[in-house]
């Protein structure tokens, strides 16, 4: 382990909190956010201001809490009984962990795409339509499904088999269907948890292209193990590392270019250059 000297979080907050030359608007901000599984502190004191309409990548070694942080942004961690979260996560100025906030509301506005494609065992059409229907969509469903599938660059491939099972699609198509399903409910932020790690290189490239197109309209936060991927697609990169107590920390958060060419922390550089993890 090379990452040991980064502990005083005060100093880090000042330098790490947000990319220095970021745009004006922030989509979501974590303030001194810590996550506990029971007594175990999985991630400590994360301060992170994620800029709007950009792609932010979260990288780091296994077990550093990347996915945990991502899931905090739409309260998916609430589904695990033993999880406790301290600090605040501000979404449009509102702490989504405040007592009067319903996570169901949060999750429609902050969507999620998972590591393994997980379409519902229903038709392709129903996969896209279901989320909007339960959220009270009243418009033209056919048109909405087509729009979502076009946005996910899947329409041309599935337009003739909308009534077939989604489980018959290839892995890459399934993942794009999951993206279509997520954007159908018109979220403001899309969280992606290693969306391409289960896919072959060609399908991965298509997903990456898609993410770039989507970032015009949506804020995207993507967790990835693949540093080339982070460098290729993201505007900003957050590097997480893990200390001796196996607690994750945000080490550095900056322009992707800066992180990959001239990181300000040594542990970031070690990780980027492959001397760590």
């Amino acid at each position, binding site marked *: 382990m090379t990452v040991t000297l980064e502990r005083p979080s005060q100093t880090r907050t000042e330098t790490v909190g947000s990319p220095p030359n970021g745009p004006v608007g922030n989509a979501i901000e974590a303030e001194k956010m810590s996550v506990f599984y029971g007594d175990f502190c999985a991630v400590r004191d994360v301060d992170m201001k994620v800029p709007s309409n950009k792609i932010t990548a979260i990288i780091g070694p296994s077990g550093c809490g990347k996915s945990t942080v991502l899931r905090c942004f*739409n309260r998916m961690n609430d589904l695990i009984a033993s999880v406790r979260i301290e600090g605040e996560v501000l979404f449009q100025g509102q702490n989504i962990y405040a007592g009067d906030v319903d996570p169901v509301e949060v999750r429609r506005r902050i*969507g*999620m795409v998972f590591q393994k494609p*997980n379409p519902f*065992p229903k*038709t392709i059409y129903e996969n896209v339509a279901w989320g909007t229907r339960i959220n009270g969509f009243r418009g033209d469903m056919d048109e909405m499904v087509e729009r979502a599938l076009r946005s996910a660059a899947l329409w041309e491939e599935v337009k003739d088999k909308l009534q077939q099972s989604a489980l018959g699609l290839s892995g890459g198509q399934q993942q794009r269907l999951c993206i279509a399903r997520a954007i159908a409910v018109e979220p403001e932020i899309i969280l992606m948890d290693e969306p391409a790690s289960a896919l072959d290189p060609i399908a991965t490239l298509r997903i990456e292209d898609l993410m770039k197109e989507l970032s015009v309209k949506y804020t995207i936060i993507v967790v990835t193990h693949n540093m080339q991927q982070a460098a290729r697609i993201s505007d900003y990169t957050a590097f997480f590392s893990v200390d001796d107590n196996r607690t994750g920390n945000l080490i550095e958060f900056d322009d992707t270019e800066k992180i990959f060419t001239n990181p300000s922390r040594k542990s970031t550089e070690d990780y980027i250059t492959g001397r760590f993890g």
Partner: protein
Amino acid sequence: MAVHQRQTVPQAADRLMPSGAAHHEQVVARQRRGRIWAIVFQAAMLAGIVALCALLLNILNQSFGYVAIVNTIDPAELAVDGVPLNELPKENLVEILEANISAGLMRRYEHDIPFAERSRENVHDLILERVVEPQVQATWGLFDSIFARDSVFAEADERFPGSDVYFRSWLTTSFISKSQSSEPLRAGVRTAIFGSLWVVAITILFSFPIGVGAAIYLEEYAHKERLLNRLIQTNINNLAGVPSIIYGMLGLAIFVRILELFTSGAFLGIGDQSTANGRTIISAGLTLGLLILPLIIINGQEAIRAVPNSLRQAGFGLGATHWQVIWHHVLPSAMPGVLTGTILAVSRAIGETAPLVVVGASTFIALDPSGPFSKFTVLPIQIYQWTSRPQDEFRNLAAAAILVLLILLLSLNASAVLLRNRFDRSRAIA
């Protein structure tokens, strides 16, 4: 690869793993052990199949075979002007009946249903029952009847001279369509079939919704670490193993005795209160429902647990509520498993005898159940009752009733499997 090994481990004596011939022998020995186990398992399966075949053959042996029958009056003697009994018009049949039975009995028949309204077949049956009065003298099994036909006839001639010997299937349409009777030749299982269907219907209506609901609660809502929930879970698992007669005692105490006002139908002012008390179909159905409830809960829980978590997360990620996720995704995915568990549980309920003996199924009842508050009997009770009779003929009846029970069970199972498959298919497409 072998070369590489030699380079890293230079001396054979140092190796910890066998190599070459020793390795080959070791693999052969391991494979042999595996084959021996496979043979043991095959033998176990064969033993099971042999036992099942023996059971089936035994039942078939008793269900069909020769019977020796002696008629009190030969039907030929009843012929009028050379026209045999079974071709006579109704008027002649009524006359024959009147001439051969007591006036009191004739009045009773007239009182039940006036002869003017009775069909020709009905009067014909009455003559067979009261005038011809066939009596079974002896019965033979199916195998004797096929393979030792001559000795069957010889024995019948010797022991029952003048008897009619003919091949009889005890499982006939009239066996299914007639109600209980003390005459083995006229006894049927209609009452018991209706009783079984009624009881099973109530069992399913009671235990399926409650069982699935409990399974949903325990899997989806309950905090598994909480002591109370762990206690509940352990108790459900143990209840599944409680002997069924204990459930019978429970049903007797609660449904028959304490809740008699409701289970007898008295609170609605219906039901036969003088005889039924709480020993009604609804008591039996609820008792069996309690009996299979743990099975349905456990199977339901397993089916719900088998639904991949990624499906739930997908639903939650779109902003669905917990209930929407359960209703739209968890339950449809779990339903085939839930139904399989229910099929198994209901099959057990159909065959249960002991708890119903305690709850008070009627052993002799000729009246079809008219609703949930009627007295009842069910097929296993009927079978049990027939096998405990001293006369041989009733054992033939019991064998035939077992066949009916098996057919009923298989057809109920088949329909449930079809239902489940339809669920599976529609889910794969939709």
